[in-house]
């Protein structure tokens, strides 16, 4: 039984690392988007946003929070998302290096909007933990 638990733990850990790696690779590919990538005059994704978004994904991963997905933003930022049954979280990594946390309830009403800096990611992680507990793993590939 103990061995099974250990093996399960190892498998989950490998899945998490794979999800984080895939997400970081996806964010990296946003570098290839030219201006107007959405046909509506979207900005090129800022190198700072890409670097900061990758760092956030890594640091959150070490704190047991795995993002579901990442998307390019029209203003040159990167949007990270986590969805659950009760809450949905968007983290906007803006080109000006500001980070905005948006928390929505299950009917998509905005219940929290707060700005953070890269220097106080611990505070950001603590706020996300308030909504998702100490562990978030969607299990999605």
């Amino acid at each position, binding site marked *: 039984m103990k061995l099974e638990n250990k093996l399960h733990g190892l498998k989950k850990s490998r899945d998490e690392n794979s999800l984080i790696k895939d997400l970081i690779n996806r964010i990296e590919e946003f570098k290839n988007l030219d201006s107007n990538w*959405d046909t509506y005059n979207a900005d090129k994704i800022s190198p700072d946003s890409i670097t900061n978004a990758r760092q956030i994904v890594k640091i959150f991963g070490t704190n047991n929070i795995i993002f579901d997905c990442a998307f390019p933003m*029209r203003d040159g930022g990167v949007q990270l*998302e986590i*969805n659950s049954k009760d809450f949905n979280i968007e983290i906007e990594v803006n080109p000006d290096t500001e980070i905005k946390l948006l928390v929505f309830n299950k009917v998509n009403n*905005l219940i929290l909007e707060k700005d953070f800096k890269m220097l106080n990611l611990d505070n950001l992680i603590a706020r996300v933990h308030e909504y998702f507990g100490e562990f978030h793993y969607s299990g999605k590939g």
Partner: protein
Amino acid sequence: MNILESFIIQEKDELLRRVPKIPSHFNNGSITSAAFKPKPNEDGLSVDLLRLTTIDFFINDPNKYLAAEIIAGDAIKEGCECIHDPLPDNHAHALIKGITKQIARKLSAICKVIDLV
């Protein structure tokens, strides 16, 4: 002054927004709200009024893009203003004004996805 004929957008009107397929804009079956957030310097979110165009013409390249269809009444109900804003090269162009982050999230959750491939 705009010399092009202008239409009043009705609540039942269908508004189309092009969404790139690469990178994928889907999370858990829904289009991300990022596709519906106007840039800070924009007057509104650009869309096309379906009754003045066709899906095929609007999507243009179905291998690269899909269409997100928003019912004007859904945006109006959230407090947005939908106005026809014809451009010299696109008579169907319209704007959804007043989109907040919450409204972008709600519209992304309820829009209909049209993929021609």
